[in-house]
């Protein structure tokens, strides 16, 4: 137990920071903003490619996939430095975080070159097709069909909550290929180009605004997808799904911790400006959130150490549950602290960060609403509690 990482890790951190400061795009280049999680402006594509070529896009990857074979802890401090500076390494985060790793884990060498490399180099954008109208928390109940017919899958059905699908070049979709098998065993994972006839994404506004177009319904109507686009083995898609969500969950807590720190920093400034920094009632909830933030990081560090040892880290669900709810409570407290001033939804609550998504400094109301993405997406807080109760506390199903 030590307050600092070892010297080698800190040297790695310093090397990255030096590179980052010398290479990151200037604010004058970044005027064009991203409109969805698969809308990547030209400058952001160049930036992602610069990181790929230098081996700084995903440091834990081998060099041919944009990395430098970094260790888990090095990958972590890399993300820590990006987060601290509010820098996205990709404006198509689900592609970098979930889709490319899934292809690299389960795809053939040819598929890695054909799909993963262009995605990592931001030459191709991607969306993740998991949830369906009747398959949310019960993902394995998904019903979108893909029937193998000769050398194509014929896809019929519907996905929903498919972030960025209308801007994406390709969708990594989980589809039912064997309707007669038990529900976990008849699922496959295929890459569906969005220009395939019969693929129709329809974006819809979120609770934040009718103009906040990221989520999509995607309809598949006899869409023919080459059989070679199968990722992993036929009917073994559940393994890929678990792998994908595993990628998503591994350092998910860091996202909550960064969000929390931003809210606390921006909130502290606003509380001072509003003359509320000496209010004992404010101290009670603000203090609780400062403590939540510290505890979240500590538990995250512990999980990281466990993962490095190769131990099963059952704490992932605890971190997701705790982190997302702590962020939400804090966003709510801040939103309500400023009275009518919180009506002004044009006021930025934090400094503009030109290499970051614009939602991170939105109004407190928007931040509060967006916090529900944390407590709903990727397994709701209720599902997390069930998982923790059964897997950690050993309570019966």
């Amino acid at each position, binding site marked *: *137990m*030590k*307050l*600092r*990482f*070892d010297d080698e890790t800190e040297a790695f951190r310093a090397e990255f920071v030096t590179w980052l400061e010398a290479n990151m795009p200037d604010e004058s280049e970044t005027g064009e903003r991203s409109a969805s999680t698969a809308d990547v402006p030209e400058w952001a594509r160049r930036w992602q490619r610069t990181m790929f070529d230098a081996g700084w896009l995903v440091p834990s990857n081998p060099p041919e996939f944009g990395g430098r074979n970094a260790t888990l802890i090095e990958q972590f401090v890399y993300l820590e430095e990006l987060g*601290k*500076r*509010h820098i996205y390494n990709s404006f198509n985060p689900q592609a970098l975080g979930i889709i490319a790793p899934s292809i690299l884990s389960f795809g053939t060498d040819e598929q890695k070159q054909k799909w993963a490399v262009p995605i990592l180099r931001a030459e191709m954008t991607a969306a993740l097709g998991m949830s369906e109208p009747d398959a949310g928390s019960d993902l394995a109940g998904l019903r979108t069909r893909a029937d193998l017919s000769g050398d194509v899958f014929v896809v019929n059905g519907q996905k929903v909550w498919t972030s960025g699908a209308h801007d994406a070049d390709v969708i990594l979709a989980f589809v039912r290929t064997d309707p007669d098998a038990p529900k976990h065993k008849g699922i496959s994972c295929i890459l569906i180009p969005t220009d395939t006839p019969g693929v129709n994404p329809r974006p819809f506004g979120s609770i934040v605004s009718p103009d906040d177009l990221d989520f999509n319904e995607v309809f598949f109507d006899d869409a023919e997808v080459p059989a070679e686009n199968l990722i992993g083995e036929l009917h073994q898609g559940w393994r890929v799904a678990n792998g994908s969500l595993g990628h998503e969950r591994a350092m998910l807590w860091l996202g909550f911790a960064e969000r929390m*720190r*931003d809210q*606390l*920093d921006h909130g*502290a*400034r606003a*509380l*001072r400006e509003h003359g509320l*920094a000496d209010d*004992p009632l*404010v*101290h*009670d909830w*603000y*203090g*609780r959130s*400062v*403590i*939540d933030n*510290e*505890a979240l*990081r*500590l*538990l995250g*560090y*512990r999980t990281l*150490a*466990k993962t490095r040892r190769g131990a099963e880290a059952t*704490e992932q669900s*605890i971190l997701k*549950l*705790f982190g997302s709810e702590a962020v939400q409570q804090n966003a709510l407290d801040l939103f309500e602290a400023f009275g009518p001033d919180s009506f002004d939804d044009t006021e930025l609550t934090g*400094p503009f960060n030109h290499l970051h998504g614009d939602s991170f400094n939105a109004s407190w109301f928007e931040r509060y609403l967006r916090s529900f993405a944390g407590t709903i997406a990727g397994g709701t807080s*209720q599902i997390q*509690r*069930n998982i*923790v*109760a*059964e897997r*950690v*506390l*050993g*309570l*019966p*199903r």
Partner: protein
Amino acid sequence: MDFELTEDQLELRQIVHDIVERECPTSLIRAVVAGTEDAAGLWKQYVDLDWPALTIPESDGGIGFTAVESVIVLAELGYVADPTPFLATTTQYAPLVRECATDGVRSELLGAVARGATGAAAFARDTVSATADGDGWVLSGTARYVVDGDRAEQVAIVASIGDREGGGDRDDVGLFVVPGAEVQASHDVTFDGSLHLADLALDGVRVGADRAFTGAGVADGVARAEHEVLAGISAMTVGASQRILDLVLEHVKERKQFGVPIGSFQAVKHLAVDMLVAIERARALAEFAALTIAEDDPRRAVAASMAKAAAGDCQRLCVKNGIQLFGGLGFTWENDLQIFVRRAKAGELLFGSSTHHRATVARTALATSATAAEEVAR
């Protein structure tokens, strides 16, 4: 940060856990509370195992473990509602002596602790004052709810210094160590009979110059000792809360209604998970406080307040959900749940409430919170 206990630390935890589970059953706690037995036998076992010496510096005759090992042990002692003077001796008295006493006396007093002498501490600067008298001091005032105040061999008293004529380079607070026999003490009967508390009447107690520490730096020493006090009592509260959760889990796995274990109901599961999250949060912060103390990091003061506030949140939720989930079966004297409910609540009442410490944390953060940009520049 490398925030994982080492193999040795995990082993220490397991050893302490196994020993206290065997040697400190709830039947002993019930006997102590009923007054039919005392904790002396158990304390002697701790002494034979060298536990009081664990966190005494090697140069003072101890084993030289850090505050991290201390909170590991304390959490396990909280788990059994330990009735011995371990908490007071090792996390209250010894830190005060270590931080405030001058070299020779420090070694003498701490060496005695390592060999099994007990100590208590009264943090009483608001209610006890000391006046210079010849080459010694005279105390006046009272200190309430001092842990082990009526049964420790030595009592360390933090008092304000009334007479400033001695003047010069001196804080307005001093530490005075007196033999327990010279203090008029009365045992407090409280809802937690296994945490031994006493009120001290100190009027006229004389302290020789060799046991009075009033130099510059004593106030800072007291503050540093307080960090250890908070880490220790927080860990003990976490341990008691963990025991409540474990008792609850055992119960809801066994108890059947409607033909199934009640632990299969989501309404039950979710309350239990919330207890776990509160415990993990508080345990992490108690260990973090200990780590900042062990490395003498400048965050140690705020980390100690965080630990105490989180321990408070933790006991509050664990007691509430714990009693509720036990249903009628937990609402009895016979059920062991009440023992740990009492210990968890007792921790909240001492050394500042969680509300107090949350406010301390918030004030520190609101005064110093840097923007992320400033942090990057650092």
